């Protein structure tokens, strides 16, 4: 069975700083996808970034980037030049490729961006 672990329940950083959220996972599979989702205080969960496990290059979306270490089963999210609107719960998620399978979520990290 797959598991996803987020070891930081809560974090706070000053606006404009860079922050890294940690995620580790456990699986015996080789083909899978990893995601970071954001849930702002208004509660609508949205996708931040995705990473395909067979790609070595780390995904980047504007100020958001990941550090994907497949051998270490680590998938951290870096937010550069943090903004007040980045305040949210962030969930790391795992999904097997080519399988009709459930999406496994971590317990989340509550991120506060301070003015």
């Amino acid at each position, binding site marked *: 069975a797959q598991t996803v672990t987020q070891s930081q329940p809560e974090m706070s950083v000053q606006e404009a700083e860079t922050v890294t959220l940690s995620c580790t996972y456990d699986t015996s599979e080789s083909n899978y*996808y990893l995601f970071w989702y954001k849930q702002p205080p208004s509660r*609508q*969960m949205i996708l931040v970034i995705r990473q395909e496990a067979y790609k070595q290059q780390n995904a980047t979306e504007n100020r958001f980037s990941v550090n994907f270490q497949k051998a270490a089963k680590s998938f951290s999210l870096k937010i550069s030049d943090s903004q007040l609107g980045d305040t949210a719960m962030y969930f790391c998620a795992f999904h097997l490729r*080519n399988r*009709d399978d459930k999406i496994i979520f971590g*317990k989340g990290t509550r991120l506060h961006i301070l003015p």
Partner: protein
Amino acid sequence: DVKVTQSSRYLVKRTGEKVFLECVQDMDHENMFWYRQDPGLGLRLIYFSYDVKMKEKGDIPEGYSVSREKKERFSLILESASTNQTSMYLCASSTPGTGNTEAFFGQGTRLTVV
């Protein structure tokens, strides 16, 4: 835009009541999911469905059932609501097979059982 709509944002029910949470998606997604979100526990999967009339138990199915009579609609049923089912319920949908497609979420239903 993909839209996943949950029928209620806030709901208050009494212990023992039968409760229906409805979810509708408009993107013809095959997969639909019901999660429960509690502080410190993240998202826990209650049930999921890969097709009409098909359902699979998730990690915490006890006390819940589901119904999927039409592709776009996935209902979560609390047969006899209890106070420990007070929680945030999130519905999601996605397309199957590749794992590349993201899950799209509804706005959530905050259920309080008194």
